[in-house]
Each structure stands twice: as structure tokens, then as C-alpha cells.
């Protein structure tokens, strides 16, 4: 009897040991991988307090100090009230990034939510086809999207100006006219936003479709029996029930909008006259073109703070305490 019990406990002990090994085996590589990420973040955090350029040898510890001097919070003071070209470009980039992000979110929601709702109403035969069509741009590379839209915006040969000419309008130099604007935003920025929206909206649309499909049919039926119109049912039943999805969509859209880079780099590279220069592009130029890594790290930190602040705000406003 004792022997059996001993055997059983040994077997359980072996299983626990094996489980432990398994957990260690899968988590250790992840921990190592994560620690690399932590090191990179720590390096970026340290760099923002130095006037660091990789071209200079600097001090004996990681090249910090010496010709890469410690500057404390000087970068941040310069960003706020400095007169250098870096400071003025930072302020322009920050303004453009905020314009981009806060314009993209409502525009994206205004397109994706009604479209998802409409797609939910049509028959299953066409639903999959439309969903695929709308989702295709998401799968296309940003550079490809940028090149397609650049050819459409071409002032001489683009078909957008061809349509403008057909209706007797004056053709526009969409991507490089600093004088042209609408609602206080340059035409070039609108043009880039349109291309970005086209590429991005399929993603949110699919998420909204999934959320709409998850709403129990009984709730909609009950609303109809109570005499609610379609609009009332949408605003009083559907919208509140997809709030958690809305939160996810808002946070993700904001995050990606604040980090917009490739489509702008290819389409305008910040032109005309820095009217489409956004923070990520400015960070990239400072880090890799002008070798101003300390400044770029400080800019990245500001971007991180903004994104974190906006995300927390969205989570507070849109959070729900219930599930269905």
C-alpha cells in the first residue's frame, strides 16, 4: 500500500517536474527576447538625455559623455521654446500629427461603421465578396498604396485631375501645392489622409462586422416588437452594445495614426513646405539622416506620452462595466 502511494506521488512529482520544465522551456526564450526589448527601450530612454550621434566616439561607457555630452532635459526645453530648425520642425510635426490622427479617427468611423452595418444587412452570397473587396487594401503594402495614389494625384496625367478637367474645373497639384488648403488643412495632407483611409478602413470594417454579428438577434427582435425604427434600434441597441469594440477600434486607429510613416514618406516626404511632416517622419530623419539620435529619442518619448495619454482617455470614456 505504502509502495503504491509512493509510486503515485512519484508519478505526480514527475508530472509536476515535466510541467515545470515545459513552462521554463517556453517562457525562458520569451523572457530573453523581452529583455532585449527592455534593453532597447532603456537605451532610448537614456539617449534622450544626451546630445548623442553615432558618428562621434564619445565617452568610454557606451559612447555616452565626451563628444556626446549629457544635456539633461535640454532637448525638451528646446522643443517647447527653442528657435533651432529641429525645434521648429518638431512643433510643426507635432501639429501635423495631431491633425492627422484626430481627423482620421472620425473619418474612419464615419466610413467603417455604416459600411459594416450595411454589409450586415445584405445577403450572405454578396457579404463575403464585399468583405474581401474592402479588406484587400489592408493587405496591400503601404508603399504600393502610396505609389498607386501618387499616380492618381499626378497633376498632369492623374485621373483625379482628368475628372476635374472633364467637369471644367481647375486642376490641382495635390501633393505639392503649399497654397491650397481646405478647412485650414493643406490639400496635400487631405490627399495623404484619403490614401491612408482607403488602405486602413477595411480592417476596422471587418472588426465592426464581427461585433455586429455577435449582437443577439433577440435584442433586435424585441426592439422591433416594441416598435423601434431602424435608426432607433441602431442608436439605442446596436451602438451601446458594440462599445467595447468601438473602444478597441478607436485605440488601435489612434495608435496607428500617431505612428503613420511609410505612406507619407513615399507620397510627400513631408512636403510641401513641411505641411505633411509628421512626428514619425521627423524622428526617422533626425535619427538616420541627421544622426541626431539623442533628439530623436526625446521626440519618441513625447510621442509615447501623447499616445499613452490619448489611449488612457479613450479607455476611460468608452469603457463598459458589463458584458452580453
Amino acid at each position: 500500500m505504502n509502495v503504491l502511494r509512493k509510486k503515485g506521488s512519484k508519478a505526480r512529482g514527475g508530472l509536476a517536474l515535466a510541467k515545470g520544465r515545459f513552462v521554463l522551456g517556453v517562457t525562458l526564450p520569451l523572457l530573453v527576447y523581452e529583455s532585449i526589448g527592455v534593453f532597447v527601450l532603456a537605451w532610448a530612454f537614456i539617449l534622450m538625455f544626451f546630445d548623442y550621434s553615432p558618428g562621434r566616439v564619445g565617452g568610454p561607457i557606451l559612447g555616452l559623455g565626451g563628444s556626446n555630452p549629457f544635456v539633461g532635459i535640454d532637448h525638451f526645453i528646446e522643443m517647447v521654446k527653442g528657435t533651432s530648425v529641429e525645434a521648429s520642425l518638431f512643433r510643426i510635426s507635432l501639429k501635423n500629427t495631431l491633425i492627422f490622427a484626430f481627423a482620421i479617427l472620425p473619418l474612419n468611423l464615419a466610413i467603417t461603421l455604416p459600411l459594416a452595418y450595411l454589409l450586415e444587412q445584405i445577403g450572405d452570397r454578396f457579404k463575403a465578396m464585399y468583405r474581401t473587396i474592402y479588406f484587400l487594401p489592408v493587405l496591400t503594402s503601404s508603399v504600393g498604396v502610396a505609389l498607386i495614389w501618387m499616380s492618381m494625384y499626378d497633376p498632369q496625367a492623374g485621373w483625379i485631375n482628368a475628372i476635374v478637367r472633364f467637369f471644367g474645373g481647375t486642376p490641382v497639384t495635390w501633393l505639392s501645392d503649399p497654397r491650397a488648403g481646405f478647412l485650414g488643412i493643406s490639400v496635400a495632407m487631405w490627399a495623404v489622409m484619403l490614401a491612408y483611409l482607403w488602405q486602413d478602413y477595411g480592417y476596422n470594417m471587418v472588426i465592426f462586422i464581427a461585433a455586429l454579428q455577435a449582437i443577439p438577434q433577440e435584442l433586435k427582435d424585441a426592439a422591433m416588437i416594441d416598435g423601434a425604427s431602424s435608426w432607433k434600434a441602431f442608436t439605442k441597441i446596436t451602438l451601446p452594445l458594440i462599445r467595447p469594440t468601438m473602444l478597441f477600434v478607436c485605440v488601435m486607429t489612434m495608435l496607428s495614426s500617431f505612428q503613420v510613416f511609410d505612406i507619407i514618406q513615399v507620397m510627400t516626404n513631408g512636403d510641401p513646405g513641411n505641411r505633411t511632416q509628421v512626428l514619425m517622419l521627423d524622428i526617422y530623419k533626425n535619427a538616420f539622416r541627421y544622426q541626431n539620435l539623442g533628439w530623436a529619442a526625446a521626440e519618441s518619448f513625447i510621442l509615447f506620452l501623447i499616445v499613452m495619454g490619448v489611449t488612457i482617455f479613450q479607455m476611460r470614456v468608452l469603457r463598459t462595466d458589463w458584458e452580453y
Partner: protein
Amino acid sequence: MKKALAISMLLVLLLSACGGSGGDGGKTVVRMWVHTNNAFIAGYEPLIAAYEAAHPEVDIQLENFDYELYLQTLQTAMPAGEEADILQLFGTWTSQYYERLAPVPAEVMTVEQAQETFYAAPIGGYIVDGVQYGMPQEFNCEYGGVLLNKTKFEAAGLTYPPQWQTLDDVVADAVALAQTDDAGMMTTAGFHFTSADPIAASFLAGIKQRGGDYWNADRSGFTFNTPEARAQLEWMLSMVQAGAVDPISFNDSTNFVIDAFFQGKVAIGYIGTWAIAEGQANFPDFADEWDYFYLPPVEGDPVFVADSGWGLTVSPNSENQSIAWDIVKFITADPVNATQWNIASGTIPAMPAVAESTEIAAAMPWVPKALAILPYGEYLGNMPDRDLVMYEIIYPHILNVLQGVETIDQALEAIDAEANSTFE
């Protein structure tokens, strides 16, 4: 025990795989990094083969990176001391990287010998505080050269080749060549000088040719708000006002000069000779006849500034520095080899002896046309951040003036203040 033995064997195998290699069959391996430019690489490959044939104990490994990736690789590899033995650098970068470069040993070439061997502008970029850190391979001349569309000249009934005596003659031809559609959109630019490099090059050359300078006396700051700079900017604006080009639809981001010229949208396109190889490669079906010419100066001698050119440097971390320098000298300073490389890459030679050779004249007929101006080229000067000054300060402000969103006064004040802030 078995397990421990297996693990030890695995470790030994891994270590031997990761360990440094003495090269193939005991050869000395010399690594060389360059940016990806097929014409340049086509120039390097036969020279490397020739060196290896003459030195069988040396194995040169050429590695190339896309331009942006090359910059990033240099910036990460150099602080880590992991860079290759030989590094291709653009001359003006030397002042930013010199702390991480090996000086040229006197027995390889002294500064005085270098200044006799190469044109002043290209070698100037490789000298910082009197110390030479590399050898140039090309004269990057952004000033004064233009692509000319012969077909458009003849269609417009203009004299070809043009007999330009002054810049006014150029503007007259440009205005005659420019075309606009019914909606007022310029479809052919008469004289496309509104990309970043041409704007910066003509602005700085104009200041010098008018007797001014953009450096202060001790080169500790810039002087951009001067009568000479104003006169040059006024002249550039007058070309736009005359209708030679519409800077809204012809600039760096829309209708870039090389693309637009080889698509038949530009009659006279201001750009360095490097554009020729790129245009021919990217637009092989371009049917118009064209050639390359040089503009007359604003006034006086064709004095201009140039920002050096591509060349080769050696890492101070290289364990084979003497071999590396021997290779660099073999590729850059041997007239026969330099001729071969310049022809393959389509670049203007950094050495007067090569630029004046009959081989170069036969292969690149535009180079003899440049011989009259090349000796007037001065090095741009070691700016704290050349790219920032050229592309984020001079170009955007001048383009703003030409596009009508900034006055000349505003632009000159901004350029002066912002450029001087790069010294802080």
C-alpha cells in the same frame, strides 16, 4: 555522461561556426561596404578581381546595402566596432564620422600629395582639421550641368546646340520651350531648376560668383542674409516669374527633375551628371534626343561649391589596415583603375589627370564640357550638418519664395537664423 559529451560537442561545433575566420585557405579577408548602386558596383567588381589576381593572399568581400539601410548600418556598426575594413563614404560625411575613421598614413599619401592628385572640391571633403581620412573617387558636381532635350529645341525652332553666352539666353530659351495646357497647368517645364540639389547648388554658386560668401571670416557661422544672396534669390524668382518653370508642379516631390526629363516633361533640367546613368537605366524607352551641357555663370568666373563625392575610407578597427589602404589607393588613386571605375559608374573623375584623359572623353562626352568649370570648384566646407542645412533649411525656404508663400526677406532671415542654429 553521454549527454554532457553531446552538449560539449555541440558547443564546440557552434563556437567553431561563430568564430572569426582567417578566410578561404588562409587568405586575408578584407571586407568592403558600399551602398547599392549597380553602376558603382559594376565599377568595383573588376578592380577587386584585378587586385586579388595581383595579391592571391587577399580575399576582398564586397557587401552592398540599400542607401537608407547603409546609413543605418554604419550608425549601428561603427559604435559597436563591427564595421567592415573598407567603407564607402560620401566626402561631406567625413566631418561627422572622422572620429571613427583611420587617418590616411603618410606613407600611403600625404595631404599635400592628395591635394595635387585630386580636384580641390572632392578631396576637401575628406580632410578634417588638416587630417586626411579617405580618398575620393568622383567629383560630385551639382552645379551648372543641365540635361537638354534636343527634340524639344528643334520642335520649338530654337538654335541647337544652344549658344548661351549669359543666363538671360538660357531663360529666353526656357520660356520659349515651356508649355501650359488649357487649364493653366504647366505640361512642359522650360527650365526645371526647382529640385533640392539644383536650388542649393545654384544659390551657393550665385553668392560666390557675385563676390559674396556664405561663411563668416573664421568659418564659425553662416552669412546668408547678404546682398549677394538676395540678388541670387531675386534672379531665381525672376526666372519663375518669366514662366520658365512652375515650381508648384515641378519640384523635388512632384515631377522630380530626372523622372520628368526622361518622361518628356522637361526641356532643360538642372541636375548633376549622376542623373544620366540613372535616367538611362530607369527610362530605356525614352525616344527624344538629348545631351548634357553647362550653364554660363551669373557673372565673372564660374566659381562654385561642391560637396565632395563618393570615396573610400578605412576603419580604425580593421586588423588589416595596411592592406585596406593599399586596396583603397589601388582603386582610387591609380589613374588607369580610376578611369575604369569612373566610366563604369558614369561619374566625373576626382582626378584632373583622369578627367582630361581621352578614354573619359570617348566614354563620357559630357566630361570634357565640364573641364572648363571643374578647376573653379571649391569644397562646400565642413558644415555641422550639411544635409540639414541643404535639405531642411535652404531648399524649403527658397522653394517657398518661388512658390509665393514666403518673401525674400523672410526666407533670407530664416535661412540665416536656422543655419546658424546648427552650430549650437
